[in-house]
């Protein structure tokens, strides 16, 4: 494949970042916005070209005997650690990276467009666009990484772009601390990633994904059966690498940054914290999947973490009042869904359908979650508040938002024929195939999803009109914001019919999707039940929700406070690490180490004062010193000689 397009896909966003970042100060908003959108539009076109060429051209470079090929379009040396351990920067084209190119550029372009309306009056508009470009560049670089180290590099870069964008409103202390939290938590997780890479690369002597995944048995063999604390070294490496994924994908217990990250501008949440960056963890596991298959313990770990997180996030989402927070927890829950789907995948179960469904859900989720976030942005734009308590009955005022939002909710709840139904159904099938416990558990989570999404939907669009509307009438957003909403709603409606199994599978062989009627029916019923319950409780203003809340005040409060995870972390970091460790070390440094050094000086000074009597001024004393000194010298020499 010609390398021009891939290079341009990466080069355009980064040059946009530099142009807007350095020249932005001298640029008008309009220029900056147009430049940013044009740049992203071009990237979008190029990415689509590449993806469509890859999937549909049938070129023997891309598909041989039905097997889709992995190819490194280019792979240049960046840094050689040793002769064999060399970091390359390259462009890996295979089904999942091609799919991700589509997802990223689509959402990114929509967000660029949307932001033109949404961020119109914010100061730092140029900076905003430059950061968006930086993020797009990093994310694209991440998905096309040819080796795990390149992924790590871009992994860090998306982290920092996320930091910059969350903290975009840098005058707000809450935004500053949220951005800091996001960065540090993910950095902490990346530590695991790094150590995982260290371990893996030490034994395999390569970073390259293709070398790793094409010969997973070799990877297993290279560790020579070494174990550490009961688990094999490879398990350790894989789990540690997954810890990096947990951080980015906000799995328990590293999820705490994501709800706070909603302090950033809403389009940013849609792009980074719903559709693209947060699925990096899923993408990482998918990328390394053949290696993970070597160690079922690691996969079990992934499954368990995912299952717990999915349920936890769903419960918490039921008790939030900030609509962005609800969406954030919903995101956590859905990503956990994907993780579980990956974790339960085995080649022998439906030909590894879990992998395919996970990727499918990644795709559809990106679309409808971005839609929901952008819709939420439109709501916030209209009522200037994040809380649904300030909303209610908006369906009459904001029809476009209402309908698109409803589509998004239906999609995420898994109602036929919207996108979520198909992907979720496949995932549940895969889970049931592995073990009915996973299936049942995740079906329950799916029901909860339907419930909390519609709770929010009804609270926002039905319930009762907020009295403030009389002073400040909410209205639909301008076209720049509506167009992305409509586009994404359309995609959410139809993307379920994409023959995903033909395109993306774990072994890159086509796979024919067939709906499992049993699973589909169950999940549909559960989803409908959740929606019905939500409608019964929240459609019209009534006292049932309050009564329920009062019936279980402790549970509601705990769930509302996210089961006190933040407090726990606050306690550990501030009270224990910061106050006890850091302060005592700083104290130790000043009062022990430094004091010792000063102590040498003080002792010298003190001795100096103490011996001054020797120089008493009296000739006779001098002579005594003289004579006794001489005698002492003689005596000591005499004794020593004896």
């Amino acid at each position, binding site marked *: 494949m010609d390398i021009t397009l891939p290079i341009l896909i990466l080069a355009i966003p980064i040059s946009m970042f530099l142009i807007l970042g350095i020249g932005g*100060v001298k640029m008008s908003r309009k220029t900056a916005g147009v430049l940013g959108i044009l740049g992203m539009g071009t990237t979008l076109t190029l990415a689509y070209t590449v993806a469509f060429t890859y999937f549909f051209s049938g070129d023997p470079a891309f598909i041989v005997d039905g097997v889709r090929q992995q190819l490194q379009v280019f792979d240049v*040396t*960046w*840094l*050689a*650690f*040793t002769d064999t*351990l060399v970091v390359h920067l390259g462009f890996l084209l295979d089904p999942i990276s091609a799919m991700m190119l589509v997802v990223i550029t689509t959402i990114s372009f929509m967000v660029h467009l949307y932001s033109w309306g949404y961020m119109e009056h914010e100061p730092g508009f140029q900076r905003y666009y430059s950061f968006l470009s930086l993020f797009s560049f990093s994310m694209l670089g991440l998905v096309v990484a040819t080796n795990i*180290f390149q992924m790590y*590099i*871009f992994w*860090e*870069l998306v982290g*920092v772009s996320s*930091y910059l964008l969350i*903290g975009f409103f*840098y*005058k*707000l*202390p809450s935004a*500053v*601390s949220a951005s*800091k939290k996001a*960065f*540090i938590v993910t*950095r*902490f997780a990346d*530590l695991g990633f*790094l*150590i995982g890479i*260290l*371990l893996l*690369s*030490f034994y395999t002597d390569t970073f390259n994904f293709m070398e790793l995944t094409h010969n997973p048995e070799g990877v297993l063999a290279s560790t020579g059966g070494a174990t550490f604390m009961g688990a094999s070294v490879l398990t350790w490496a894989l789990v540690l690498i997954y810890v990096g994924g947990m951080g980015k994908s906000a799995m328990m217990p590293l999820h705490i940054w994501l709800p706070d990250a909603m302090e950033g501008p809403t389009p940013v949440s849609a792009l980074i914290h719903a559709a693209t960056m947060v699925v990096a963890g899923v993408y990482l596991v998918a990328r390394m999947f053949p290696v993970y298959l070597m160690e079922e313990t690691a996969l079990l770990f992934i499954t368990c973490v995912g299952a717990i997180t999915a349920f936890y996030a769903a419960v918490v989402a039921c008790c939030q009042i900030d609509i962005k927070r609800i969406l954030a927890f919903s995101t956590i829950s859905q990503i956990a869904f994907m993780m579980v789907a990956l974790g339960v995948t085995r080649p022998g179960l439906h030909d590894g359908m879990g992998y395919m469904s996970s990727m499918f859900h990644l795709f559809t989720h990106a679309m409808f979650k971005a839609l929901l976030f952008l819709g939420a942005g439109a709501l916030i734009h209209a009522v200037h508040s994040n809380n649904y308590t300030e909303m209610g009955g908006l369906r009459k005022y904001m029809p476009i938002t209402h309908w698109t939002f409803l589509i998004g909710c239906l999609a995420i709840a898994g109602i036929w024929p919207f996108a979520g139904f198909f992907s979720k159904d496949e995932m549940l099938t895969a889970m049931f195939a592995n073990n009915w416990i996973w299936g049942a558990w995740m079906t329950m989570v799916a029901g909860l999803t339907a419930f909390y999404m519609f709770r929010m939907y009804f609270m926002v669009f039905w319930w009762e009109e907020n009295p403030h509307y009389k002073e400040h009438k909410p209205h639909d957003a301008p076209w720049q914001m509506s167009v992305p909403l409509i586009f994404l709603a359309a995609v959410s409606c139809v993307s379920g019919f994409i023959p995903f199994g033909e395109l993306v599978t774990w072994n890159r062989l086509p796979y024919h999707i067939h709906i499992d009627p049993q699973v589909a029916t169950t999940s549909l019923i559960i989803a409908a039940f959740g929606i019905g319950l939500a409608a019964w409780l929240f459609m019209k203003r009534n006292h049932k929700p309050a009564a329920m809340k009062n019936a279980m005040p402790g549970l509601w409060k705990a769930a509302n406070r996210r089961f006190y995870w933040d407090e726990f972390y606050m306690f550990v970091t501030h009270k224990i690490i*910061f106050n006890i*460790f*850091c*302060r005592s*070390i*700083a104290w130790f*440094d000043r009062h022990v*180490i*430094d004091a*010792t*050094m*000063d102590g040498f*000086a003080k002792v010298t000074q003190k001795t100096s004062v103490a011996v001054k009597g020797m120089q008493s001024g009296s000739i006779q004393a001098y002579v005594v010193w003289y004579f006794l000194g001489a005698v002492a010298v003689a005596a000591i020499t005499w004794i020593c000689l004896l």
Partner: protein
Amino acid sequence: MFGNILIWFVIIPIIMMAGLGVCRNSSMNAIRTVMTVCSTALLGLAIWLCVDFLGLRAAGETAEMLYTGSWMWYAPLNIELAVGVDGISVLMILLSAIIVFAGVFASWKINPLPKNFFLWFALLSTGVFGFFISIDIFTMFMFYEVALIPMYLLIGVWGTGRKEYSAMKLTLMLMGGSAFLMLGLLGIYWHSGPEGHLTWNILEISKNGCIDPSWQRLLFCLTFVGFGVLGAMFPFHTWSPDGHASAPTAVSMLHAGVLMKLGGYGCFRIAIYLLPQAANELAWIFIILTGISVVYGALSACVQTDLKYINAYSSVSHCGMVLFAILMLTQTAMTGAILQMLSHGLMTALFFALIGMIYGRTHTRDIRQMGGLMKIMPYLGVCYMIAGFASLGLPGLSGFVAEMTIFFGSFEHTDLFHRSFVIAGTCSIVITAVYILRVVGKLLLGPVQDEHHLQLTDASWYERFSTVTLILAIAGIGCFPNWINETIQHSFVPIIESLTQAAI
């Protein structure tokens, strides 16, 4: 003698001093002209050296040191003025030249006594360059001390805060280190070769390789501690926070940027290279100490409130990483150490330059009294952020490359001892992120703390010039690290060889 290009790195600063000598104290323009011309000449020469060096290597020049020259000095004791550079020294020279160049612009408006300031500054540069070009341990030591002592006056006269105390402490502690070092060097000399063929020349000592193991152990400890003090090794680092906090901008830059590298470079060039057997045996002691430095410095930095203290402790952590990597005794880790020296040199210089600029405006370095500076002085804010990102190891900037190389190199040891320390070392990058973001959050972001700050201005042209130079260098290393690898890889061969031989 003057035909050797390396000698000019010492001669130019001397010309600088002579030029300053004829300037009048009041004529700022003349002083600036002299400094600008000479520091540009140094930078140009350094770049030329770098290019030419790479050219020679590419042309197949395989000698360990290039541009060698030696002139007998104190013949009765075989003291020579011997010069020569390998890839590592070339890079160090380049680093020094960049920082001297940036330092001149950072102290554009130094007051009072500009002439004296630059005189001592030039003397310091002489020492630094002399150290890096020497391959004779006597002259190396001489230049080392030449570089140390101007610090006293530079901090004492032009510093701020408890400058007298800090200057004295810094000078005495560093001299204390060099006392141990001196003894170590004497020991090396008297064991450097067969009777009648004693030498101070590093290459010859290494070739002779006849220091017996029991002496090696003693000398290794002496020299490593000696250089380690300058490298801010725990527990000999306490001069660093106070010293840096009191030093004027350019001096902090030069000190943290270059002078602390003398420590790492010396450990590498003398302690490890000349005493390989002891290095193999005793590295573990110092791995523990430097490992502590790395984590300890970072943790201490978390609770500081003075910008310079934060940076000084951060330097303890980062320079600890340099020594830590050197002690790993693998080629990759050592490459990482050199990269870390470069990276730390540039980014700390940038940090200190920015802190100086901010302090010059707000007249405080207490982060609790500042806030929201990004709004007021966006240029400085952005630069500070870049420096911060470099420090916490963001890919694309220099810190990342260095740290990663160190970790991958260190991980080549398979035993639990080394691995646990490597993992402790990796933890420091998280802690670094914590304190850097804490500072950035408090200092640059959030609401403006002090109304008076709203009137402050952003960077002036010479400040921009100085910072841009450094940022370009940082990004240059971060984006294209491999050329550095290529420059220095040859230099490790003899060191690794002698280490392996000693291990047998």
